[in-house]
């Protein structure tokens, strides 16, 4: 009997634990989307991405921007297409960064929720969704937020890539870094596909500008526990500049480690990292000579100011570039729907989107130039170099059209 009662005690404790965490967490999750108002019809906008698992933060970052865009459009009364008012509702599904779950979610969003547009923020999910987004039964526009040039390269007719390909960045970065520090570059790219492609692009840009590469040390930023041995090895090749291909905080630790081991040169960050997050783990003085994406909040254009203020008001924190991506993508999509006169036909919507560009007013944080025939949007983005412990002047990294 004693044994039996013990079992129940442990059962109770376990149930208690689950319930506790459950309840304590439930308060945090806010409901997304809005109900329809008045005579407006609701168009579902699909989203699939990581909301749990290791990449959950990245997923939530992009989703926040999308939700904000939709809320803004809805509170302005929605859009008018052929005399009918429409509002939007975001249906977000978690795919844990797994392509098969992205595919399942895509099917669900397309058939159950009749979403004409589905957002995705990773290449694997994009490839899985590209297998069926053009099926005649339930076509949908795949809106990808990824700077991976691969996602636009497969000739899928209904793919819209709402971020610049990163291939535009290495060249201006190389020029800036070489001018200030010298011609020797060591690379510590991430082992992810994205990181490796970045490393290759960086290498060719650097050598095209007349520099030499002292060594490439690919690192798994997600599983490596101690970056010191990589830094030691990279520094042993005596570089002037080090390229880092990881997410923000690991990059920050690598920079800190390099400074502690006596490195005086510059750093180039890939666009997976945002400087403002890097600065959370390493001091601005240590960051002197670091080149990367200009933090969104440091730009002074009216569009940026408006976006940053609105985002801070809504989420109570300063937005990064990742927060803005799906925001302006959604703005373009809404305008494209109005122009195309359809909220259901993805091909028409994409054509409409092409027609509403360029957008240069303050409704979006960046200047949106055009969408090319691969569905890739060309945006006016900026890089910067940190010097004297401050962010420097922005320089343009807009790709050649």
């Amino acid at each position, binding site marked *: 009997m004693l044994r039996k009662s013990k079992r129940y005690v442990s059962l109770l404790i*376990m149930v208690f*634990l689950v319930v506790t965490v459950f309840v304590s967490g439930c308060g945090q999750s806010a409901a997304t989307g809005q109900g329809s108002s008045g005579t407006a019809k609701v168009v579902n906008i699909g989203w699939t991405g990581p909301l749990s698992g290791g990449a959950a933060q990245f997923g939530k970052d992009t989703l926040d921007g999308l939700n904000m865009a939709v809320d803004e459009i809805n509170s302005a009364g929605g859009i008018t297409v052929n005399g009918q008012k429409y509002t939007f509702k975001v249906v977000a599904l978690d795919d844990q960064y797994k392509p098969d779950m992205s595919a399942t979610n895509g099917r*669900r969003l397309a058939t159950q929720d009749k979403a004409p547009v589905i957002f995705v923020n990773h290449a694997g999910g994009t490839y899985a969704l590209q297998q069926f987004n053009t099926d005649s039964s339930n076509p949908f526009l795949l809106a990808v937020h990824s700077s991976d040039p691969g996602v636009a390269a497969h000739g899928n007719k209904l793919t819209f890539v709402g971020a610049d390909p990163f291939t535009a960045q290495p060249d201006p970065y190389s020029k800036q870094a070489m001018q200030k520090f010298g011609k020797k570059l060591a690379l510590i790219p991430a*082992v992810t596909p994205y990181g490796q492609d970045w490393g290759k692009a960086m290498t060719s840009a650097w050598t095209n500008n007349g520099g030499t590469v002292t060594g490439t040390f690919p690192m798994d930023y997600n599983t490596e526990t101690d970056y010191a041995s990589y830094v030691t090895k990279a520094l042993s090749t005596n570089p002037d500049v080090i390229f880092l291909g990881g997410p923000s905080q690991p990059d920050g630790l690598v920079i800190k480690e390099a400074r502690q081991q006596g490195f005086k040169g510059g750093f180039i960050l890939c666009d997976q990292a945002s400087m403002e997050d890097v600065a959370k783990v390493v001091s601005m003085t240590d960051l002197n000579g670091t080149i990367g994406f200009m933090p969104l909040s440091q730009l002074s254009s009216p569009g940026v100011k408006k976006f940053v203020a609105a985002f801070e008001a809504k989420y109570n924190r300063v937005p990064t570039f990742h927060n803005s991506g799906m925001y302006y993508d959604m703005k373009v999509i809404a305008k494209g729907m109005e122009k195309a006169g359809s909220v259901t036909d993805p091909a028409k919507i994409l054509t409409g989107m092409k027609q509403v560009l360029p957008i240069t007013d303050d409704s979006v944080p960046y200047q949106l130039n055009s969408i090319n025939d691969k569905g890739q949007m060309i945006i006016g983005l900026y890089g910067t170099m940190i010097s004297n412990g401050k962010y420097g002047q922005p320089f343009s990294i807009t790709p050649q059209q």
Partner: protein
Amino acid sequence: MLSKNQKFKWSWLFYLAVLILAFIFPALNPGSYYIQVVSLAFIYAIAVYGLNLIEGYMGQLSLAQAGLFGFGAYAAALLTMKLQLSFWLAVPLASVLTAVVAFFIGLISFRTRGHYFVIFTLCIGVIINLVIQKWDAVTGGMNGLIGIPKPTPLGPISFDSLKAQYYLILVFLLLTVFVMYRLVNSLIGRTFVSIRNSEELAAALGINVMKNKILAFCVAAFFTGMAGSLYAAFIRFIGPDISSPTLTFEFLLYLLAGGQASIAGPIVGTLLMSGLTESLQFLRDYRLLLFGPLLILIVKFLPMGIVGLIHKLASRSPFRRSAAKSLNPSKTVKGEGL
């Protein structure tokens, strides 16, 4: 164990009904989302049948299963993409290759026992995963392989539509269930179970324990590899993640929820957990929070899973009560093996 007794007729009727339901399911027009979910669950179920054979019937907890799944998927993808083999050749070939790999793994890993075996196989799984990640020249590295061809048409039957793919996967699943059913109800299946219960007694009865373990592992790997190759042809994009230990843990959860050492367990568990995962979408992180304790609770209170529970309830009638008791595997721990 199943033998000729009167309970059989009822269960056959039930299984027939389930089978008919599975066949008419797409005709009910549930929408491509549900067909997708069920198809994927079927694919995973095939892999879980593999784990069921090796862990459920044989008592050897192999954590290399996702590695084998990934191996099968990459093998099938490479055979169709690089060698332009037809789906109908690539799938059996990939499955056989997986079994061959498992043969060599088994040769070494079954020298270890108990926890060492579990950790050893986990390491094998990790190594397969790491090799897939690092060997970009063949596997595409972290990029994975994109654009794996759809199943080749079989004469006039094409597999372009989702429904056609569903039936294709269903046929493979039925084949798996059939083979497993035949196997575990044969003398060979009894031999496996005898090894689970006591390796010593099995050896004393003249059973070559090592040979049987390797046999079960290879058969399990064959089906796991087959599941992997079906996955490749169905999702048409594969990345290193499909060989990560996390997927093995998911297989394990499916198996335990359904009930190990039963023929219905893997499919029941996989469908149930896939359904739960989908229907709990709104819970996001909480869903993962539930699965851990669920695993512990199952191990503690429902060691034979849902199917075991149903058997237990069904046998609450006075004369069958004892049979249910005998389903409790904690009674079989007299042996030295796992």
